[in-house]
């Protein structure tokens, strides 16, 4: 009986520790978001959206940085999404069981978790060194390389969920394979693929490391994709590390904007996925 009591006590202890661990994890989420709101809301004003990043000591906004982030994120998504969808289609529809498919899947999963700063270095060597200067194009390509593995993975997973009976039904009606994929499989997997793209956009919206060596930063308004372009993450990095209080305030405002965008995309993607057509 004493032995049983001891086991009960150990069990209770472990249960409590597990609860504590979960609370510990959630605590950080709350703390980080709370500090962001606390410092960020005070820093948010309409000026942010109409003025450029200021030199230290004067007031300003984040307009050029917001614009740069939106432009580079859009281009990266525009390059990364079709590339990722087509590669994912190959994995799901044409490569089942093949060696080549296995290799691509393996490498894609590694790219998915590879350090983003390495991607920055790669694009620096690939584009910045060759072109001789930093540019928004290089930044967008670096971000696209981060988008691709995410989209490949979700596209493949979602196409795999499409029941084979659907494909067979379409084939039985005489449609060639590409039509089956384009008109039946893509439509069936659409929600899931959109979810994947949203998650990818959420991921690159806050990426800083790959932009440091590619798009760099720009204090001024610029629409020139061939030159350095301001972007929120690098501005936050630079301003937060600076000793100037007004720059630090702007960094908090930028941080809050990015976090809101990222959380919004993430929760939206999850909501979309939860009423997806095919459940596992």
């Amino acid at each position, binding site marked *: 009986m004493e032995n049983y009591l001891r086991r009960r006590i150990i069990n209770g202890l472990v249960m409590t520790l597990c609860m504590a661990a979960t609370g510990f994890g959630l605590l950080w989420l709350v703390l980080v978001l709370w*500090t*962001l709101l606390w410092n960020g809301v005070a820093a948010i004003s309409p000026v942010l959206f109409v003025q450029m990043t200021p030199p230290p000591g004067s007031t300003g906004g984040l307009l050029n940085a917001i614009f740069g982030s939106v432009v580079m994120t859009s281009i990266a998504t525009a390059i990364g999404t079709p590339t990722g969808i087509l590669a994912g289609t190959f994995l799901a529809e044409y490569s089942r069981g093949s060696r080549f498919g296995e290799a691509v899947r393996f490498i894609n999963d590694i790219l998915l978790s590879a350090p983003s700063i390495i991607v920055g270095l790669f694009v620096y060597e690939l584009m910045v060194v060759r072109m001789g200067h930093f540019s928004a194009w290089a930044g967008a390509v670096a971000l696209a390389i981060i988008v691709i593995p995410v989209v490949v993975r979700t596209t493949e997973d979602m196409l795999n969920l499409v029941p084979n009976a659907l494909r067979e039904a379409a084939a039985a009606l005489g449609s060639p394979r*590409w039509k089956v994929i384009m008109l039946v499989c893509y439509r069936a997997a659409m929600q899931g693929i959109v979810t994947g793209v949203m998650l990818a956009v959420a991921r690159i919206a806050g990426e800083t490391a790959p932009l440091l060596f590619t798009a760099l930063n720009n204090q001024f308004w610029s629409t020139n994709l061939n030159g350095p372009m301001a972007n929120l993450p690098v501005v936050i990095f630079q301003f937060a590390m600076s000793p100037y209080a007004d720059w630090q305030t702007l960094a908090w405002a930028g941080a809050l904007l990015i976090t809101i965008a990222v959380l919004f995309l993430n929760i939206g993607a999850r909501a979309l996925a939860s009423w997806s057509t095919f459940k596992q």
Partner: protein
Amino acid sequence: MPADIALHRVSAGKSGRGAVGDFLFHHLTFLFALFVLLILGGVIVALIEGAIPALRAFGGAFLYTDIWNPVTEKFGALAPIYGTLVTSTIAMVIGIPVAFGVAMFITEICPIWLKRPLATMIELLAAIPSIIYGIWGMFVFAPFVQQYIEPAIIDSLGQIPGIGALFAGPPLGIGVLTAGFILAIMVLPFISSIMRDVFETVPAMLKESAYGLGATRTEVVLRIVLPYTRIGVVGGIMLGLGRALGETMAVTFVIGNAHRIGASILQPGTTISASLANEFTEAVGDLYLSSLVALGLILFVITFVVLAAAKLLLLRLQKQAGG
């Protein structure tokens, strides 16, 4: 997949426009799949190409010297490598038990209606961009650590002979320990979500049998669930480790960026990724730049090995689960 093969025959047997379209579409998707491989190949080639001048100048000594002097152009990677390994170790020591606790709570203890919201909230930790952790770490967490945690550590652990050296020095707030701690928070959602996934693969029958024999929940998890999912758990941990090794922005803000190797984890240090983020755009001189690229190459090799191992372990579990 028999259905798949049958389908392929149906399409291949056709002639005319459909066959041409099939050929084109198949090869188009193939090219893009090939492109994924090319990206990885490109990364390897670009990093090696960029690192050649440094490797030629310093040879193997680059790996085990700790001088980092841009003025005399003498570079060695030991300090950043050391910092990368130490911060990741701290992150794992704190992160693994917490992630395990979270995964166990969500899969075995909490009521069903709470599962989804809890899991989502923990995963949102992974969604927050790393620069946010960085700015939060520098302005909020580091001062807190400096004021409350580090003095307590120095007064208690720092006084023990032997391991005291690990916790010596003034409380700065910014340093290896703080960086490791923030990394632990960042990798926690990755590790716990994989642990959760693999815990779910344990057949209910196995667990029920153990409960039927009178085992407590703790015993079921430690003696049934954990042995059954061992490989997957290790895979998840490796995946988290891969993240921790390469994490850049959060670490750059709080590690202090000092190219030195100190016994004390309370003191500033640097990691490979933090050195790159801090110095790359300001580096002048080909040898300096090339040394930084060589650092990147080392980081890439380390993370590649860790991630590949993680992936292989998880694949093995998948095969096992699939029969």
